[in-house]
């Protein structure tokens, strides 16, 4: 009973500390569990989406010129293939600025238009689940996978414009469906569904177009738009991985080599969950640091409480309370606060998980029904309370050192103010120098605040550096992105086309009138295989300009390739190794000349000179060239001029050129997610800053109440004392910021490399801009100043009368 009485009294007296612990625990529990709930629910949703389709292991898109019934039969007859479903599809064209467009949003990736088949489920209107049935499509209607909602910024009822051959067609979006293989916004190619009537009509048009004498010499038309979509289901007896399965099928049938693209279930799940997983890991890392911050705050609160309540604790001891009992009372009040925080956190996690799921639903490509991850919740809560108990046990150990007599007579063990760092007082800067003195003479009291501000600064700088990655040219190039100011595309369909060589010659002449070319990327990509493993292949006309080289050298010979670190780790190929590269029309031996970085296909990619690539896939031509120019200010002017020059002898436009302003446009797709992450981290930092200041200020205020009285007695005003108080906290925040900057310099790069390795980025060259440091530093220092100024309002209530000894 006596314990309950004291716990109740302590909570009543220390409402601030109690509420702070409740809040900190709630934030940590809510954020960590919402991440776990979301990622677990996302994994379950992805797994379930594949089950709805019968759990296909691999999807291969085989263009009509490479398809034969024999190939299909060969695949079907393999022992390792349990089932093979082959669907007919039609691949759209890019023509006159349209490939798949809704309003102003055009997606240049291939969309495979096909009849609706089993296993495709209609998503309900609020994207929270599924309709029981999927209504058949009428003529002119289309079902789009959920990822298109984000890519095309469209909604039900919007009109989707596309091209087959040289003609445009329009479909009305009837709904969004779950298509597990390509449905994520993170995956380029899409399987979309139209009515049987439309499909048959388009197939008929295709046949007629190809037979039309007017297009007899049009290679693109003759290639056709027909595609066979192979869905392979591995046999139950097959024990290898999805990648291994794909390879075994490819080695036995060449299906992989003949396909325009392939995607295993494992790859699809990985790509769909990639962005949420990377961002979740960043947030979880941040939460772990916040937990450390929370422990520091709690530890400081306990220490200060012991210091402030020294006399009271002495009295309790003199009345027969054992040290153990006193420590128990202190621990119970914090545990009680934590339990309340856990309950609030659990409720918060449930709602927060839903918010996160809504944010990422299109990225993942399927509705995510949130389930509580009970086991993880138990583990997280146990870990939080267990570690906190340990900290409490360590911090309350001080109670053992309190002697009743010493405490009651007011004697103390520690002399905090015996400092070597005694800077003189200045009349002009009296408030500041007094603040510095308060800090230097009681450094131990401010260590926790120093740690807190250092950690908060570390994370704010880190998130700025991460955000900088998507707008910094050097950083993007280091990650293997080809950052150009001028993008030139030439048509690959129709007659009297321009060749890349001709277009390039005209572009060079125009650019050289204004500036010089620093780098150029004439590149195209498709899927090829290395030693039977299907990988994305990027063919470069100018391999000497390939970016993101980490080790070795760029290809100098036609039989040399670059692979990513991820490919090297996955398949065990090293620099100097000889590998067999195969395409649709051939294969040859190559040597790995180096390791480079690329985010194409999330790092599962290799680079090859175009000269060599031509022999693997002769029909695949380069139709894009990007230029890096010295004088960026001329980019728009040059782009306009090149655009006009891309005409054939008949004056027909056969290409286009645009310019890209990285500084202003950035990488839009990731920018919104990065900004969301930035917002979360800055908001959390603000809340933690507020809690830390309120707790630390309150303790400092109690400990310094007598000094405040003295200063008032000799003529200091409350305003001046509050200013000095706030300046002291700002000073600590400033010092903490400097430590945070040092931590960031030391660890951010390594942390980001570890987190981004899943998307193929193993080496980063982070650029720290002045604003990346100055903004969080100002926020932290000003935040601490303002919060501590507000928290110090109690100074007004200190009366000099308190110094009177009656």
């Amino acid at each position, binding site marked *: 009973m006596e314990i309950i009485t004291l716990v109740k009294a302590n909570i009543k007296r220390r409402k601030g500390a109690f509420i702070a612990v409740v809040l900190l625990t709630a934030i940590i529990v809510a954020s960590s569990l919402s991440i776990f709930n979301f990622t677990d629910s996302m994994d379950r949703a992805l797994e379930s989406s594949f089950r709805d389709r019968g759990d296909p292991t691999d999807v291969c898109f085989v263009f009509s010129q490479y398809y034969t019934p024999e190939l299909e039969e060969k695949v079907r007859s393999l022992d390792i293939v349990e089932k093979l479903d082959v669907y007919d599809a039609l691949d759209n064209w890019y023509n006159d600025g349209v490939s798949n467009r809704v309003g102003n949003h055009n997606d240049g990736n291939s969309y495979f238009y096909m009849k609706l088949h089993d296993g495709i489920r209609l998503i309900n209107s609020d994207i929270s689940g599924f309709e029981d049935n999927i209504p058949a499509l009428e003529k002119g209607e289309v079902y789009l996978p959920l990822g298109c909602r984000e890519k095309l910024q469209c909604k039900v009822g919007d009109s989707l414009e596309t091209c087959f051959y040289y003609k445009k067609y329009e479909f009305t979006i009837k709904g969004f469906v779950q298509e597990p293989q390509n449905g994520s916004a993170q995956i380029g190619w899409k399987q979309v569904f139209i009515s049987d009537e439309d499909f048959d009509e388009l197939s008929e048009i295709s046949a007629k177009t190809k037979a039309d004498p007017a297009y007899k010499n049009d290679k693109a038309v003759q290639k056709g738009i027909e595609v066979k979509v192979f869905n392979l289901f591995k046999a139950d007896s097959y024990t290898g991985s999805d990648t291994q399965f794909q390879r075994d099928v490819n080695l036995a049938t060449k299906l992989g080599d003949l396909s325009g693209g392939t995607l295993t279930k494992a790859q699809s799940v990985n790509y769909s969950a990639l962005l949420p997983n990377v961002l979740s890991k960043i947030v979880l890392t941040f939460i772990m640091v916040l937990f450390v911050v929370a422990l520091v705050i709690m530890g400081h609160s306990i220490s200060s409480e012991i210091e402030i309540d020294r006399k009271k604790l002495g009295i309790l001891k003199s009345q027969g309370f054992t040290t153990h009992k006193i420590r128990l009372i202190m621990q119970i009040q914090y545990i009680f606060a934590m339990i309340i925080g856990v309950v609030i956190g659990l409720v918060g996690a449930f709602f927060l998980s839903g918010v996160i799921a809504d944010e990422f639903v299109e990225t993942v490509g399927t509705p995510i029904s949130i389930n509580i991850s009970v086991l993880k919740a138990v583990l997280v809560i146990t870990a939080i309370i267990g570690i906190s108990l340990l900290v409490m046990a360590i911090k309350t150990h001080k109670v053992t050192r309190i002697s009743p007599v010493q405490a009651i007579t007011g004697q103390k063990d520690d*002399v*905090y*103010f*015996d*400092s070597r760092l*005694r800077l*003189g*007082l*200045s*009349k*002009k800067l*009296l408030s500041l120098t*007094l603040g510095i*003195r*308060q800090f230097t*003479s*009681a450094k131990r009291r401010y260590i926790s605040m120093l740690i807190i501000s250092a950690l908060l600064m570390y994370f704010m700088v880190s998130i700025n550096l991460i955000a900088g990655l998507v707008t910094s040219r050097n950083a993007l190039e280091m990650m293997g992105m080809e950052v150009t100011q001028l993008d030139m595309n030439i048509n690959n369909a129709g007659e009297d086309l321009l060749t890349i060589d001709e277009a390039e010659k005209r572009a060079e002449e125009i650019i050289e009138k204004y500036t010089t070319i620093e780098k150029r990327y004439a590149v195209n990509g498709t899927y090829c295989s290395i030693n039977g493993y299907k990988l994305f292949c990027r063919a470069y006309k100018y391999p000497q300009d390939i970016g993101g080289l980490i080790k070795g050298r760029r290809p100098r010979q036609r039989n040399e390739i670059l692979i990513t670190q991820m490919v090297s780790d996955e398949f065990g190929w090293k620099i100097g190794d000889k590998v067999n590269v195969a395409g649709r029309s051939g294969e040859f031996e190559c040597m790995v000349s180096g390791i480079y970085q690329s985010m194409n296909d999330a790092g599962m990619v290799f680079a090859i000179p175009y000269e060599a690539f031509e022999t693997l896939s002769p029909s695949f031509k380069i139709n894009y060239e990007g230029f890096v120019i010295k004088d960026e200010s001329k980019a728009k002017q040059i782009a306009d001029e090149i655009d006009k020059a891309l005409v054939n002898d008949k004056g027909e436009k056969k290409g286009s050129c645009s310019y890209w302003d990285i500084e202003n446009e950035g990488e839009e797709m990731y920018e919104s997610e990065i900004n969301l992450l930035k917002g979360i981290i800055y908001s959390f930092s603000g809340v933690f800053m507020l809690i830390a200041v309120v707790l630390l200020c309150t303790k400092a205020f109690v400990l310094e109440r*007598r*000094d405040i*009285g*003295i*200063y*008032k*007695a*000799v*003529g*200091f*005003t*409350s*305003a001046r004392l509050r200013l000095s108080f706030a300046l002291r906290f700002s000073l600590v925040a400033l010092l903490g910021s400097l430590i945070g900057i040092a931590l960031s310099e030391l660890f951010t790069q390594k942390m980001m490399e570890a987190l981004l390795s899943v998307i193929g980025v193993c080496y980063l060259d982070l650029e720290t801009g002045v604003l990346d440091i100055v903004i969080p530093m100002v926020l932290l220092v000003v935040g601490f100043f303002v919060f501590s100024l507000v928290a110090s309002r109690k100074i007004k209530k200190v*009366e*000099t*009368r308190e*110094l*009177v*000894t*009656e």
Partner: protein
Amino acid sequence: MKEAILTAKGLCKSFAHNGGQLHIISNVDMELYSGDFTVIMGASGSGKSTLLYALSGMDRATSGSIMYGGTDLVTLKENKLAALRHTDFGFVFQQMHLVSNLSIFENVAVTGYLNKSVPAKETDRRVDELLEKMSISHIKTHLPSQVSGGEQQRCAIARAVINKPKLIFADEPTGALNRKNTQDVLDLLTELNKEGQSILMVTHDVRAAARADRILYLSDGKILGDLDLPPYVPEEIKSRETQINAWLTSLEW
């Protein structure tokens, strides 16, 4: 005719207590004169410290007026009172109340720095001078925790006079000191008074009161006696103590 520097009229100080009011100071009328060493005596709980702090503006009186330089301290705003504390008034407490993380020099200087009309160098010079006068210049870099109680109190007196106040308020300045230190502190206050410094001191020690040239006796928040004494001469200390004791006895202390 002595010049009054502080005049209290109808001064009351009450506290809320058990749903009613506890009157500590009741309707006090008094005047303090320039150059006087005035002492307030009274039994424990008589309200002498409360009266001292009310008169100095450190504590707000419940009613009445305290006129100082034409201004009523009872209604004066907090920042004006703060200014008054570092320009016109000096304080010496029983428990010294030095700022623990400032050196002896800094404890005095920090109050001096509040006086905007004196340059910092001049303040520093004056602090050195005062510490010399108080015989504590050798410990000027020490922290309060590193010096004796008597030295701390001498520092507190130096702090009280650094801005050349018109009136020093001293609340039992020798209450926490031993005999030797008590003597030293009283000598210092006497010396300051001889130089023209007005002092109002609260004490219940007759030896300390013997330094005054005016004693007010307080009982239950009311001034019951007012004794004028001739200027202090060390050799007459015994007879002054006898006179004060007799006076106090007549007032039934």
